[in-house]
């Protein structure tokens, strides 16, 4: 009703609002101002439509109508209007009637309500009175019955008490009966029932009874204990026995401790067995065919004992309800011990097959145990442990690989040191270490692939991680290998001071050269092959998270080893040139050049120099590829220097010893420099025999020049140098391939000597030739003698 009324009110209000708004403004957008506007301009815009607006002006309308319409239209309009007016009148009348009717009916209703309310009060008072009387009667009944009820209750209590006393007197016999019929449960129920009374009155009235029943209970306890410990009883029975003992407040914990000790002992035995088992499998590996029987036998035994353990666990779980924690701990201990044993094994070098065998055994054990102990989360626990073990395994494998490679390298070093320097010792070392790298890496990968191929749950779950670890392992491995190379080469400084390379052992140049080649080999062949292998069988992974990128970045390793290769080659050259520098330094610092005697023969330092170069040649030839013979390349120059002049010009100058002209000569030199193409000396070194040798020759000659520049020569000193250089010119041609640069440098040495000479008069060419020939003859003679 009310809701409807509300709706009606709402409707009404809405209608009112509509009417009001239509009254005040016919056009919602136009308001007072526009209205005025409208009236002022009405004469102009007046139409017949204004009849329905508020600004309707009858006169104007009439005028308009008369003006606009003809008679016929006017007549028609008149008829229409008359009809409309009549209609409106009728509507108005109807509205008035309806309203009046509603008013009358409302008045009627109000009158009726007034009549009905009279008399209601009296009825209410009557009702109250009646309720009061009902209440008083019920109270009366209650008081009359109270006494009797009390009496009945007292009687009832007495009876109960009597019954209890009877029960206690009967208790000993009852217990006896129960023991006889082995109904221990009943007996204990009775006994515990009587317990409160014994506690309250045991010292006085029921003393005898108490003693007797206690004796009986002691018997029961003994029997129950026996039952718990006997393995032949059913688990259910044992569990019940424990329950009963617990009800008797017997210290069950002690029992439990004893039982767990037994279980523990059992596990230790089992562990020993498992160690034996792994040993057996190691043996098995040594005897690949014959040992399998033994293996299967021992594994069967192992499985049997595990089953036994599982049974025991199951029993204990039932027997001791609160023993789970302990059992969990036991089981976890068991797994931990197992993995610990495996870890020990890993420390020795062993293959994935063995690891797999062990893991398989452990996993099956774990699965068996977890059947009875699902709460232990043993698979998870084992997974964690296996994760560590497998990671350890991978790490240790890489460690072994590193050791193998460094062994291969150091063996070469030792051999070289012992002077057993055979013709091909460096080559052998390089081959051996190359093999160690590639074969070792392949073996490692093969091993790891076996891990992946295994289908057991455990390893499947670890699969992704293993892939990551292997990739990471390789990444780290090559990093450490690089470090190790540096260490071997003696290049790494203070960071390595505490490492095991004893001080004072000079690193042999050959080893550095081997390292250079090995780095190159790793970059060019080993890495691509390993990358391929990894891509084919170790793709996937991805537990690492993408933000870190892939674990194995061959490009990075390649870069490392490329730079390492260059570094070692540089180091080799550096070490070699250092040796030569020592020879040169001795040559140039020892004599007093200003008081030098006339040259008689080519100085012996040339022999030393050539011998050094020869030694380098033999080393280089063993390892480095021949390389293309190419002439001087300009594009790869690192540094440069200039020749002061072309050969004929120099000879020309040398023949003129006029001191006055020296100044203009210097100018000439400068001028010549301006026009001369820069001659590159320090070109990039390549991993070829020629390149290395040429670089060393060039560096040595440059050093020679620098040494010369630090001295002052007399004429003889200058001639000596001239002679030596002349000799070198013929011999070095055979060694170095970049003839132009070598010639240039040799000339530079002579120029430098001339510049530093007080009296630069060269030897006559015939004398020069004669001395050089004599030296060459002597050398060849020596060779033929030896």
């Amino acid at each position: 009703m009310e809701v409807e009324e509300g709706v009606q009110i709402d409707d009404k209000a809405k209608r009112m609002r509509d009417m009001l708004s239509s009254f005040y403004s016919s056009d919602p957008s136009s308001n007072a101002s526009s209205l005025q506007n409208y009236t002022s301009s009405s004469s102009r815009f007046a139409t017949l439509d204004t009849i329905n607006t508020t600004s309707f002006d009858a006169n104007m309308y009439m005028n308009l109508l008369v003006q606009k319409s003809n008679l016929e239209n006017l007549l028609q309009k008149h008829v229409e209007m008359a009809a409309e007016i009549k209609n409106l009148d009728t509507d108005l009348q109807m509205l008035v009637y309806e309203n009046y009717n509603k008013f009358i009916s409302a008045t009627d209703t109000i009158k009726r309500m007034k009549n009905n309310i009279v008399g209601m009060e009296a009825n209410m008072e009557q009702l109250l009175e009646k309720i009061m009387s009902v209440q008083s009667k019920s109270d009366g009944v209650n008081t009359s019955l109270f006494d009797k009820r009390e009496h009945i209750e007292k009687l009832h209590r007495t009876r109960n008490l009597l019954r209890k006393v009877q029960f206690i007197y009967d208790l000993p016999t009852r217990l006896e009966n129960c023991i006889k019929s082995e109904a221990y449960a009943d007996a204990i129920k009775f006994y515990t029932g009587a317990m409160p009374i014994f506690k309250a009155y045991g010292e006085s009235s029921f003393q005898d009874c108490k003693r007797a029943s206690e004796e009986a209970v002691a018997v029961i306890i003994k029997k129950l204990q026996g039952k718990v410990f006997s393995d032949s009883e059913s688990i259910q029975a044992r569990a019940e026995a424990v329950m009963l003992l617990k009800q008797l407040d017997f210290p069950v914990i002690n029992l439990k401790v004893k039982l767990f000790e037994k279980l523990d002992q059992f596990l230790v035995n089992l562990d020993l067995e498992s160690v034996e088992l792994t040993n057996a499998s190691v043996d098995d590996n040594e005897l690949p065919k014959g040992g399998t029987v033994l293996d299967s036998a021992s594994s069967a035994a192992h499985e049997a004992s595990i089953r036994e353990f599982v049974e025991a666990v199951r029993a204990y779980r039932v027997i001791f309800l609160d023993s789970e924690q302990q059992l969990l701990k036991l089981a976890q201990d068991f797994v931990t011990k197992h993995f610990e044993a495996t870890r020990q094994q890993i420390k020795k070098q062993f293959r994935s097959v063995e690891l797999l065998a062990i893991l398989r055994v452990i996993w099956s054990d774990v699965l068996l145990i977890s059947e009875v102990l699902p709460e232990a989360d043993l698979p998870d626990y084992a997974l964690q442990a296996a994760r560590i073990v497998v990671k350890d395994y991978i790490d240790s494998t890489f460690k072994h690989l590193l050791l193998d490679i460094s062994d291969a390298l150091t063996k070469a070093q030792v051999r070289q040191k012992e002077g057993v320097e055979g013709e091909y010792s460096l080559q052998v070392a390089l081959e051996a270490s190359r093999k160690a790298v590639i074969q070792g890496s392949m073996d490692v990968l093969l091993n790891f692939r076996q891990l992946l191929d295994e289908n057991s749950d455990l390893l499947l779950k670890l699969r992704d991680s293993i892939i990551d670890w292997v990739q990471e392992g390789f990444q780290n491995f090559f990093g450490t290998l690089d470090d190790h190379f540096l260490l071997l080469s003696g290049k790494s400084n203070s960071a390595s001071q505490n490492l095991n390379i004893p001080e004072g052992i000079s690193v042999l140049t050959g080893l550095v050269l081997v390292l250079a080649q090995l780095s190159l080999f790793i970059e060019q062949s080993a890495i691509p092959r390993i990358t391929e292998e990894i891509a084919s069988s170790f793709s996937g992974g991805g537990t690492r998270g993408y933000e870190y990128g892939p674990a194995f970045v061959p490009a990075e390793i390649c870069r490392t080893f490329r730079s390492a290769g260059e570094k070692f080659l540089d180091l080799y050259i550096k070490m070699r040139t250092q040796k030569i520098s020592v020879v040169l330094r001795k040559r140039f610092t020892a004599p007093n050049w200003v008081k030098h005697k006339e040259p008689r023969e080519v100085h012996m330092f040339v022999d030393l120099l050539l011998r050094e170069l020869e030694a380098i040649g033999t080393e280089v030839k063993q390892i480095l590829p021949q390389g293309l013979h190419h002439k001087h390349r300009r594009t790869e120059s690192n540094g440069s220097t200039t020749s002061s002049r072309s050969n004929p010009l120099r000879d020309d100058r040398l023949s003129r010893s006029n001191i006055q002209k020296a100044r203009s000569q210097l100018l000439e030199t400068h001028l010549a420099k301006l026009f001369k193409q820069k001659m590159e000396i320090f070109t990039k070194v390549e991993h070829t025999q020629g390149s290395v040798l040429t670089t060393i020759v060039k560096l040595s000659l440059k050093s020679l020049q620098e040494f010369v520049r630090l001295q002052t020569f007399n004429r003889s000193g200058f001639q000596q140098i001239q002679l030596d250089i002349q000799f070198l010119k013929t011999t070095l041609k055979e060694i170095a391939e970049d003839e132009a640069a070598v010639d240039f440098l040799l000339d530079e040495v002579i120029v430098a000597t001339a510049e530093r000479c007080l009296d630069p008069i060269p030897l006559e060419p015939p004398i020069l030739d004669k001395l050089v020939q004599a030296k060459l003859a002597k050398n060849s003679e020596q060779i033929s003698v030896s």
Partner: protein
Amino acid sequence: MQGGSTGVGYGLKYQARCISDVKADTDHTSFLTGTLSLKEENEVHLIRLSSGGTELICEGLFSHPNEIWDLASCPFDQRIFSTVFSSGESYGAAIWQIPELYGQLNSPQLERIASLDAHSSKIKCVLWWPTGRHDKLVSIDEQNLFLWSIDTSKKTAQVQSQQSAGMLHYLSGGAWDAHDVNAVALTCESSVQLWDLRTMKTTNSIQHAHVRNVDYDTKKKYMLVTAEDESGIHIWDLRKPKFPVSELPGHSHWTWTVKCNPEYEGLILSAGTDSAVNLWLVPPTSDDSALDSLVESPTRRVEPLLHSYTDYEDSVYDLAWSSREPWIFASLSYDGRVVVESIKPHLPKK
């Protein structure tokens, strides 16, 4: 990294080996250089960088009696400098004063204040204490170390003490610690010897062969930089002389000289016989964690070579930082060409 010819050049008439910054001249950036010619009249040039830094102007040209192997400007008097010279067999060292005739050039006669003539063997170099006014001078010959007491106003030089480094150690050069007036580092064939001038004894040594040049880090105490023939540049902490703190690759041939920048820490210039000058930036390592930083260095190993100036025609034997404008250095190649460069474009952004 081919350096374009960004530097300002200046040509000496003859070959030359040594150039020195005139530290006491606080108004101009100027350098002293001397020629090395066996047969000609040798010259000492006082050159000044024009205020715009675009030109090198000869401020003074003085004849010098012999070829100059070493030249050092006095750090507290811009008119005084020392030279080590030779003529054929004989060697000598002297302290000179530039006459008071600036800019006129009509009396190019150097005044010899004192001769350091107590030496019996080949003199290698003369050292001034780089930091300030000090009345002592160190001179080094092949076997001995001399400590001179000089008085520039009275024009006297007296040997205060002398000590032999031992017959077998051929001394080749040295440097005077800017932080410690009593510490001098001497280079010899097989090691760098650290001397205390009060006792005239070796306090310590770095066993490192073929050190050609040595320089103390003027910004950081205990830091020493050495240049070697074949094995590049090493930086040492004198408190831990067993192993270098760090190592730079150096040059394609010998690294002849190294100079630490007087203002910017870790900036090192080196010159070599491969006709190049290299500018290095050594990442600063705190004193105590020098080892730690070495361990972690692979992760942040930055290329230490900032720039290589290769626009030289011959070996570069000497360098000098300007102490007035520490971003400017002068280099001298053997063909007698002085090139002044600014390292401003290569300074690390702070």
